[in-house]
């Protein structure tokens, strides 16, 4: 496990399934946009220009809003703000859920009871009403309020999963062995236990980021945030309030919506890729392998080189299966069983 996680970067990249590569590329593109976006944006997002409700053109690649603001600049700033928020929520939630999950499973006893109780209480709080109430109250606080509230509601899922996994690993012999050799608890947790959960923690992080993007955009869309800060959600909020849809101004909401959708897609792809990276067995049993230029399923009989070379490919053999010769071949071997 350890060696498979910490192999050299190039090797990991080569072994990544295609979808994970697409995910990494797509997500990398948006991270890049978030980093350099505000520097290269052609206008200030809130600044007004004489052109109002203009369709995409050379001056305004994504067109302008009703008040003449440049949509491209808004989206570039919005990507930064939304990703910032989502990654912050992701980090906070992951840290909290690892801390709580590992502590409660590793210490056991009263600690486990108390921490599990807290986890379960947070699990059953209905998130949406609470989010609306809290953010309605705190909406002028800007992003910080959203980060705090989303983190507060996001950690119990990860904590539960990590607690369960920790319980399973804690019972393994190598943990007992390291305790017998006198390792301290924190050392066992950090060097023996956590490395076994890296793929789980990574997946939980990616999922949380996804959740944070979805939730923050949705909350901004209904106006429960500081609507004067440009995030992908507030771009959509203003497009909605100024009736971009009925005005036919598709360029106003499509870029921001597409950005949200693509970030979400990239995270899902990333997640399933991480899954396979963490458990190579998943990779080995899934899908086809290419042997001598032919796709072979794991359930196929062992291929014979001479036949592969004589093979006519999938379409060819499909057509050939109608021929008389293949019918004769098909029954010759079985005899009357």
């Amino acid at each position, binding site marked *: 496990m350890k060696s498979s996680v910490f192999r050299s970067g190039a090797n990991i990249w080569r072994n990544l399934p295609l979808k994970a590569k697409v995910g990494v590329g797509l997500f990398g593109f948006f991270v890049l946009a978030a980093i350099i976006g505000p520097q290269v944006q052609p206008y200030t997002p809130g600044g007004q220009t004489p052109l109002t409700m203009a369709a995409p053109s050379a001056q305004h690649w994504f067109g302008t809003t009703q008040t003449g603001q440049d949509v491209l600049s808004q989206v570039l700033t919005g990507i930064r703000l939304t990703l910032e928020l989502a990654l912050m929520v992701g980090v906070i939630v992951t840290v909290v859920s690892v801390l709580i999950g590992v502590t409660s499973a590793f210490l056991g006893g009263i600690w486990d009871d108390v921490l599990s109780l807290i986890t379960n209480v947070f699990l059953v709080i209905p998130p949406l009403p609470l989010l609306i109430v809290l953010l309605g109250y705190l909406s002028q606080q800007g992003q910080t309020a959203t980060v705090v509230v989303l983190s507060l509601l996001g950690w119990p899922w990860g904590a539960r999963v990590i607690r369960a996994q920790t319980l399973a690993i804690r019972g393994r012999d190598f943990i007992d062995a390291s305790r017998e050799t006198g390792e301290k608890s924190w050392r066992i947790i950090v060097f023996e236990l956590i490395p076994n959960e890296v793929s789980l923690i990574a997946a939980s992080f990616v999922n949380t980021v996804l959740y944070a993007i979805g939730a923050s955009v949705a909350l901004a869309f209904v106006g429960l945030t500081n609507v004067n800060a440009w995030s992908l959600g507030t771009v959509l909020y203003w497009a909605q309030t100024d009736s971009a849809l009925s005005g036919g101004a598709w360029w106003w909401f499509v870029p921001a919506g597409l950005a949200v959708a693509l970030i979400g897609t990239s995270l899902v792809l990333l997640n399933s890729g991480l899954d396979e990276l963490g458990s190579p067995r998943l990779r080995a049993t899934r899908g*086809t*392998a*290419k*042997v*001598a230029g032919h796709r*072979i399923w*794991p359930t*196929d*009989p*062992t*291929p*014979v*080189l*001479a*036949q*592969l070379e004589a093979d006519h490919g999938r379409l060819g053999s499909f057509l050939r299966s109608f021929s008389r010769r293949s019918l004769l071949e*098909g029954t010759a*071997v*079985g*005899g*009357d*069983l």
Partner: protein
Amino acid sequence: MAPILEISDLSVAYRSEGGDVHAVEHVSLTLNAGEVVGLCGESGSGKSTLAYGATRLLRPPALITSGSVRYSGRRITQGGEPADILAMSHRELARIRWREVAIVFQSAMNALNPVLRVQDQILDAVTAHLKLPRHEAKEKAASLLDLVGIPRNRLRAYPHELSGGMRQRVMIAMALAADPDVVIMDEPTTALDVVVQRDILAQIVELKETLGFSILFITHDLSLLLELADRIAVMYAGRLMETGSSQELMREPAHPYTRGLLNSFPSLHGAKRQLVGIPGVPPDLRDAKPGCPFIPRCGYAIDACSAVDMSLARVPGTPALAGHLTACPIVTPQVSAPDGAKQASQEGVAS
């Protein structure tokens, strides 16, 4: 004795980025009806790859690069040619497996599903391959347990309620469910202690006598084969080193590797002696050097060893019918001559 499974010139390679790993190289082995053939060699010598390759159970990146495997069980060959397993389609193989060629897998006792009763798991196998009505299938399951000496009331037990030996017996019973002609046993007793091992081996021999199937028995334990097998094939680095009847192999091992194996375990009789073992490690199968793969570990290697083509030849001084063959050029000098080699390998296949 009629041959029932003829593996000839079989080569299996695992495709990898660093080149092909030649796990089995030009191996010919014949299993006759009612015979127990032991296949032995150390870990990674290709014995399991040979058996699974011949039954086409290997997953990618395995690839059969040459050879043929002919099966002529009694239900297949009635008035026909032996069936070529390497030419079979997915469906044809499904009909061969279990009914004709059954396999007891390595660490098979862990193959039982812990949440299903033994009965249900036997029934799964029976109904999938025999298409019996429910009550007959149940009776069949019970009689299979009788066969391997487990009381019928254990049918409703879960795997964890059985001992390791009993689980292994259940797996053997399941393999015998469809009355196969060939049973391949891949280290069926490895995880068991010697007493249980002995019990199960006795059972296997008894079942073989009554049901009349042939066994290809794979193990790394040569001492076990000497008792059990009619003939023994010794593999090393994907090649056959020596084949012969177990008596001959025990009395007069021809190949230095076989001798090394025989010297690796103590004999119960005779004077005490120092156990020798074989120094060194098996070679990397990725870049095969010409000649005998055992040269680096062999105490007797001569120049001819690096030129030998590893085809089997009759050990001088043994009757042709006995079929005691070896690939060692020291024992059989005629092998190194190209003409002699051709002829000798022909002989090897034919016997």
